[in-house]
């Protein structure tokens, strides 16, 4: 615009002389280039985001479905003993050869001869070896099934599962893929009978660690993470709020306060793995707390989250206008009453938003948990925070190191679950802020 007016003046003064070249084209070209750089940079950033999400979701969504085979199981008394024997002693029931039941059922279903060793072993490779536990639980829950025949949905083996989900190329020669031609024939047969199906994978949400992909789940890890989040919430929220109230409302301006401020700002930027070293040296070595316990993990994450909560809380307290404080003090409230009865309730939405964001950070943190021994193979639900447990991101780390193809899918599935939790937390933080934020 400024150029236009300058040229206009020149035009009137000197008649219709050709425009003096002041490089305006070049400068506009530079301008356009510069703007394009910005757009390209943003496009690259968003492109990375899309690629990341696509890579995870395209690999992971199949993890929520699991191939299962419906097999008629005869709970034969010869294999698991009679119900009377089971009432006397559980040992036989626990040790019985359940895979044999599944094998017999499958042989019957496929109509192959029990003497054909090759066929039997091919058929057996279709079902997961986790059937032992599935069938045992059925019998243990209800002894009356002994001697009867029932149709039971059994997990397919991870090879079959991956093959049906199209994760193996089935056109390569037979010896270069984990599923044989005979097995493919059986799969066709089962499909014709309607005995093979992709069903929703509840096991992913309820099971614990397992060396077999089809029976592995994140249930135990979610409970471990839940314990840690509870500990972080119970410790970090009150301590963080108390610290911020002191620093924002009471602290005199002196060396001590300065020291605390510098410390908090630094702690917010210390690498998370250093907190893991702290937890290992102090909580485990010095206080003698058990390794792998959710309690230690929770304490370490508390120390990590504190700076985030303190910084958010202080901003929320600062946003409460001084007039509120002056009014309360003017009516005869003490300093404490002013803060706790008036300032704090008004700052609460901001504090809660900051806390949720801090919790989301803590939920995704992995490195410090590796150092305090939470990389353990935990198959049972922890009943107290002192029991060995693992966390959702650590479970992801452990599965990421597994070589099997089926675990890639599981890992992506677990990541989707983790991202789901984080999304819920962040969205609720945003909603909370929108709903309760007050502009003064």
């Amino acid at each position, binding site marked *: 615009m*400024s150029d236009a007016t300058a040229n206009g003046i020149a035009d009137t003064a000197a008649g219709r002389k050709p425009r003096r070249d002041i490089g305006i084209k070049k*400068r*506009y070209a*530079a*301008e356009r280039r*510069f*703007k394009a750089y*910005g757009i390209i*940079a*943003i496009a690259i*950033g*968003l492109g*990375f*985001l899309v*690629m990341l999400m696509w890579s*995870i979701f395209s*690999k992971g969504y199949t993890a929520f479905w699991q191939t299962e085979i419906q097999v008629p199981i005869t709970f034969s008394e010869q294999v698991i003993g009679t119900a009377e024997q089971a009432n006397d002693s559980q040992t036989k029931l626990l040790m019985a050869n359940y895979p044999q039941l599944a094998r017999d059922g499958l042989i019957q279903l496929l109509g192959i001869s029990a003497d054909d060793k090759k066929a039997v072993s091919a058929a057996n490779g279709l079902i997961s070896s986790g059937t032992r536990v599935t069938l045992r639980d059925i019998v243990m829950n209800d002894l009356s099934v002994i001697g009867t025949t029932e149709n039971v949905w059994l997990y397919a083996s991870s090879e079959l599962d991956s093959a049906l989900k199209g994760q193996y190329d089935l056109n390569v020669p037979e010896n270069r893929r984990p599923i044989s031609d005979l097995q493919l024939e059986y799969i066709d047969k089962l499909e014709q009978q309607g005995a093979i199906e992709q069903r929703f994978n509840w096991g992913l949400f309820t099971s614990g660690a397992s060396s077999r992909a089809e029976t592995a789940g994140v249930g135990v890890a979610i409970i471990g993470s839940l314990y840690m989040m509870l500990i972080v919430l119970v410790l970090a929220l*009150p*301590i963080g709020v108390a*610290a911020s*109230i*002191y620093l924002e409302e*009471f602290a005199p301006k002196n060396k001590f306060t300065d020291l*605390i401020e510098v*410390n*908090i*700002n*630094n702690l917010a*930027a*210390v*690498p*998370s*793995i*250093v907190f893991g*070293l702290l937890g290992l*040296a*102090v909580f485990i*070595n*010095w206080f003698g707390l058990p390794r792998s316990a959710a309690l230690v993990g929770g304490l370490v994450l508390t*120390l990590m989250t*504190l*700076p985030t909560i303190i910084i958010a809380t202080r901003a929320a307290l600062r946003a409460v206008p001084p007039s509120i404080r002056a009014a309360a003090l003017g009516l005869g409230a*003490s300093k*404490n009453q002013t803060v706790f009865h008036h300032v704090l309730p008004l700052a609460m939405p901001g504090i809660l938003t900051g806390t949720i964001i801090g919790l989301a950070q803590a939920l*995704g*943190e*992995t*490195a410090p948990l*590796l*150092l305090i*021994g939470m*990389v353990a193979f935990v198959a049972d639900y922890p009943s107290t925070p002192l029991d060995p447990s693992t966390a959702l991101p650590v479970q*992801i*780390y452990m599965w*990421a190191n597994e070589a099997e193809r089926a675990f890639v899918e599981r*890992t*992506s599935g677990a*990541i989707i679950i983790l*991202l789901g939790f*984080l999304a819920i937390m962040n969205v609720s933080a945003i909603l909370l802020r929108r709903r309760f934020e007050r502009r003064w």
Partner: protein
Amino acid sequence: MSTFTIIPIVFVIGLVGAVMAYRRSRALVGKDGVKMHSRPTYHASFVACWGIIPALLTLAVWLIVSPIVISTNVSGNFPEGVLAQSQLTEGLAYGIVESIGTGLRVLPDDERATITDTTPVADVTALLRNRGIPTASAATDWMVPLALQLNSLQFWSRWAMTLVVFVVAVAGTFWSYRQIAPRLRARNNVERIVNGALIAASSIAIMTTVGIVFSMLFETIDFFSRISPAEFFFGTVWEPRFSNVGSSGNAGSFGFIPLLAGTLYIGAVAMLIAVPIGLFAAIYMAEYADNRTRSIVKPLLEVLAGIPTIVYGFFALITVGPFLRDLSAQISGLVSGNYVSFIEAQSVLTAGLVMAIMLIPFVSSLSDDIITSVPTSLRDGSLGLGATRSETIKRVILPAALPGIVSAVLLTASRAIGETMIVVLAAGVAANLTLNPFEPMTTITVKIVAQLTGDLEFNTPQTLVAFALGMTLFVITLCLNVYALYIVRKYKEQYE
């Protein structure tokens, strides 16, 4: 009674006292002519504080002091000369005694009753093994009476602790309840306690820093007493062999240089990609984008910052690494006809690229804040003189924002150096010293994780070195952070 039952009971005592105090002070108000100094809730809180806090302090002190007292007592009773014979250190022997003691407590009553001071240790271990409790092979006969003594001491200590804590709680409640009177300045007392609690909470930040420094300092000093600092800081070979028991003097070499080089190299690659992208994105959003674009793009970019690093690590391991490897195979195939991949799946480039994705939102949102905080008057002045937007940005805004941008870059660098999960999964574990970005290198953080996961014994150089590495990492990032914060502070004052 266990500690976890004592604490709720103490709280119940305090709360009962508080309810009684509330009623009593309400009753006092009813009398004519009496004006209370504090409101009834303050009287109630006053009594609750006196009931709960001293009791919990007593509990804490007892829990810390009693194991020390008991262990000195039991260690003092070790028969003379046995330690010299059995080649055990005192700590180790005490550990065995302790484990026998814990084992004995698990036994059912009738079996435990058979064990006396004179029971040979073989019988005890047999009993324990029946219950699935292993005992150390070095356990000897003289340890049995000591284990029994330890158990009885612990038993009595626990009872005494329960009793003392309850007495303190009741006494505190009772005493403070007796204090309730119209003139009692309960509010001031309670507020003083609350203020104390607030100060205590804010000093936790200092305690954490002190904890970090000291916990690592002691282990680091211990490490340097075995391996000389010169060997650590200037060594170029990283090969911490786990030496066998007995083969002394062969602890492996702990050269820090390859790790530092890997850390800096990967960090540099990441910064080289992330800083231009982040900076241009920030400039566009701050100077060109309208409000609608900004309100969509900014949160989307910040999603990248909210994704846990383990997810990036997995992305690098499964997608980016194999992609780069296959891409390089195609390229070399096109160039030389020989389909050999020259980029390895785990490489400096893979780790740096993925780390850059994580760092983009840090650079962009930090610099966005800084660019928008440059006063509008500078911008308007430059535009008014006829400069284009890009000229204004290049000649006026960026120079004005430079210190802030430098500090943003420093903070980002400190994050890149301390990043763990991406490099654990994407950079590899081989401690190479190379300039080729297509080969794997390893970082300080990877080695900390590698040395400290799995079963570990605490006094070998192999595990202690992790603390020395952690200390170095802490010092490097601390310097970067402090310098960055210093610049920010100085810069802020300039325009306020």
